[in-house]
């Protein structure tokens, strides 16, 4: 997690210096988590997407004032919660009292309740298809690739920790994680509507 914060700090500094690509990378990293958070608050997929877009626009404009006292994602989540609250109020609605919003819970994906209730049939289908494609691709990976990626994505271990656990060089860990991601990405690209030439 420390490294995640370090890379965020580096990207924020580059974005503050005017490098739009760096901000774009932060958007790519956090958009899905913010969407999930916003969906939980506004309970409408289209409105949640508007909240996410509004959040990043506000964050981009406020970036010069971000001094890095808090983690970037914490700052971002606060903007998102305020944007979602404003969206609700503009529609004469209020923040659900039972939402129990907690930034740390949202970050670690512990919050899962009620999301299926607010998804459209299309997004439910996409969720299902993505999960099936990712899981199926994971199962089809050679064991060492599957275990290495699991240690990284599910257990959250650093490359150095994985190398120690699997008794192999860090370069091997890095290569295995890349190969595993590429194999899975190949399976989900048709669902994402993106093409990547190798």
């Amino acid at each position, binding site marked *: 997690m420390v490294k995640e914060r370090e890379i965020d700090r580096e990207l924020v500094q580059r974005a503050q210096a005017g490098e739009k690509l760096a901000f774009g990378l932060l958007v*790519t990293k956090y958009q899905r988590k913010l969407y999930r958070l916003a969906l939980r608050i506004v309970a409408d997929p289209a409105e949640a*997407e508007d909240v*996410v877009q509004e959040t990043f626009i506000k964050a981009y404009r406020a970036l010069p004032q971000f001094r890095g006292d808090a983690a970037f994602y914490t700052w971002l989540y606060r903007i998102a919660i305020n944007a979602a609250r404003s969206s609700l109020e503009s529609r004469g609605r209020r923040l659900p009292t039972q939402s129990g919003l907690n930034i740390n819970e949202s970050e670690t994906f512990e919050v899962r309740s009620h999301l299926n209730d607010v998804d459209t049939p299309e*997004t439910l289908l996409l969720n299902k298809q*993505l*999960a099936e494609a990712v899981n199926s691709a994971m199962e089809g990976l050679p064991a060492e690739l599957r275990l290495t990626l699991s240690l990284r994505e599910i257990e959250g271990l*650093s490359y150095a920790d994985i190398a120690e656990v699997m008794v192999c060089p860090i370069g091997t860990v890095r*290569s295995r994680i890349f190969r595993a*991601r590429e194999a899975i990405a190949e399976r989900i690209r048709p669902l994402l509507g993106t093409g*990547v030439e190798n």
Partner: protein
Amino acid sequence: MQEHISALMDGELSGAGLDLALEMLRQPEHFARLDAYHQIRHVLRAGESAAAMRPDFSAGLQTVLRNL
């Protein structure tokens, strides 16, 4: 070299490696690659409750932000 993009999202790059990855990500196909990796992470951690956005939302958002 594409490994750099994978390592970048894990916070395992610094210095020249980071600069190289950022340079690669100026190309749309590499940016899409990184976005797919993030989608994979999202699904692995949350499963079917990952709450997928519309497939074209991500690209549209990037366009909006580029034009700010």
